[in-house]
């Protein structure tokens, strides 16, 4: 049997075993032309589906154009996409960062540079006078976000590094990093100064972090299908352009 199988494969290189009507060639060519023509007519006359969910596009009259016109149309990034960094501000506009150097220490690309200083009116907290990320060196690993004890650096912008004309343009100073909605927790020291009414044990639930939830994992609702993209982008590239 093995011998037979071997002999069956004794065809010249590039030779396929065709039936007689395939060897006539013309009908098969016409079939091929029909396929091409179907695509042509559908795409010519049909309305294009503008949805960015390319795999499930269905235009009218069989239009199946899969192109995304990039600068104008963008595919949504998946949930949890590590985008451009931002320094999270507090309600008063100052950075949450306390210049603890943990992100700069953990960074494997050594792309974070911090200079610390102290608030004159608050001897407890430090703050960064300079917080610089070199986006050309950054490998977008996200370790800085995990290392941060104050939730002060995040990569939730869903924007990737915009182009620049010079290398210096990719070195982001604190003015370009401090963006986005302010975040404060009741446990934050600046919330608990004199007269604060928030109890300290409200800390974990208000973080909204799943690990601290007590409900079993199996009972959690699955993510709804087709809506697996969270509302985004929160930021436009222009938010990270240099201030003119």
């Amino acid at each position, binding site marked *: 049997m093995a011998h037979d199988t071997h002999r069956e494969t004794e065809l010249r290189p590039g030779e396929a075993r065709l039936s007689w009507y395939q060897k006539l060639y013309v009908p098969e060519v016409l079939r091929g032309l029909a396929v091409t023509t179907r*695509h042509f007519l559908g795409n010519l006359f049909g309305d294009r589906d503008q949805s960015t969910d390319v795999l499930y596009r269905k235009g009218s009259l069989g239009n199946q154009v*899969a192109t995304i016109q990039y600068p104008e149309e963008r595919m949504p990034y998946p949930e949890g996409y590590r985008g451009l960094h931002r320094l999270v501000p507090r309600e008063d506009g100052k950075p949450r960062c306390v210049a603890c150097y943990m992100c700069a220490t953990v960074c494997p690309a050594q792309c974070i540079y911090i200079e610390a200083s102290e608030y004159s009116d608050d001897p407890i907290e430090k703050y960064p006078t300079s917080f610089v990320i070199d986006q050309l060196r950054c490998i977008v690993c996200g370790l800085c976000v995990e290392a941060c004890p104050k939730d002060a650096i995040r990569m939730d912008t869903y924007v990737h590094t915009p182009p620049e004309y010079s290398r210096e343009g990719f070195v982001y100073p604190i003015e370009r990093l401090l963006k986005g909605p302010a975040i404060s927790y009741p446990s934050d020291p600046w919330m608990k100064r004199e007269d604060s009414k928030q109890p300290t044990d409200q800390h974990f639930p208000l973080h909204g972090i799943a690990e601290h939830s007590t409900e079993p994992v199996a009972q959690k609702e699955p993510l709804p299908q087709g809506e697996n993209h969270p509302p985004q982008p929160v930021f436009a590239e222009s938010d990270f352009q240099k201030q003119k």
Partner: protein
Amino acid sequence: MRAAQISAIILGLIAVIAGAVGAFYWVGAALGVVAQALFGAAYIGVAVANAHTLLLVLVMILASLLTLAERKWSALMQDRIGPNRARFALPGLSNRSLAGLPHFLADGIKMLTKEDFVPDSASKGLFTLAPMLAFAPIFLLFAVVPIAPVLTASDIPGIAGLAASMGVSATFPVSLQVVPDLEIGLLYVFAFASLAVYGTAIAGWASNNRFAFMGGVRAASQMIAYEVALGLSLVGAMMIFGSLKLEDMTAGQTAGLFGGALPAWGIFLQPIGFLVFFVASLAETKRAPFDAPEGESEIIGYFVEYSGMRFGMFMISEFVEIVVLSGITVSIFFGGFHLPLPPAWGAEAWLASHVGAFGLAVVLGMGFVLKVILLCWVQLTIRWTMPRFRYDQIQTLGWKILLPIGLANVFVTGALILADQSLDWLAVAGLAQLIFVIGLTVLYPSKKPISIRHSGGAPAQPAMPQGH
């Protein structure tokens, strides 16, 4: 929504074509009147006008638009959008892609302003001559193609008054054909089509580049191989219509088959001849699936050393070749400029009685241009459907398949014409062939070829005898 827009654009383009045909007639007749007044020979003026309107305007515009159409249509066939980024920096236009039209202007500017590079070791004179030799013969082919019927000058609006004001009679014929009444017709076509070989072969040799040289050799041998089939494929049509002139062939196709139920088009009488001619002419254009001479993606071809407009000449000559071969194919196999309706209906006489001779001529000329565009589209579709033939497959197809088929077609056609002068038997044979092919295409179950590396599942039983 988009369907309505596209349909409106297509209708608008058809109207533009009709207007252009009318304008061609008018320019020809007007120059004819002038020549009649100056030299006493109207045909000089008509010929000069046709050489400009038909060759420079019609063929060149169609060919250069095909450079854009190739990219845009191929995009549609491949579920892409195609070129749409070049824009006019004008108010109101700066945000519109205009279906990619600016790209073809941008391409022209690019070609003309690129560095015109000549390799040091190239043969300078031949290097310059080759693009012209490749381009000119193809361009000349269109001279014998009749795109609309012959009119008397006075039928064209405004010409009778013009002639009266210049004191000449407007009774001379105006034809939309650069060289009317050329007795050698098709022989002229074959002669100039084969001259194009020199351009490619010389280009390959003069570049003094081994890859270009090999490409030139491939081009020359391929074109020589298909010349034979090209010539043989039309012998049947020559026998049927009894003439070498394309206008006689066009006129012959107004005859009815089966008592006028079917126009006597070449495609019905000579389907095999059409197939052989179309394949051979595709090979002559050196485009996919016959683009081994160029093979731009892996085996670079004969114009690899060319840049700028010299390369542009090679490229545009391909597209001119598409237009010209479509024109010749339409003239011989698709009824020329006549309407695709059974002659028994008398549609053309009805039109002539309602819109006059000039209106009928414009409609017919428009129909011809539309048929040409449709055939250009078919050629582009073939290019974007089929993979490239291997070189030995090209030669096998030319010498071992097309040539015998063409020869057999000549004998069968001759016998059937002898047997029945009214061509009905020939039409029966042709229709039977067409129905056979179309029936196979539609009815035969789609089946994957049995893979050489068949593995798993039920063993494939090939239809060949076992055990020896």
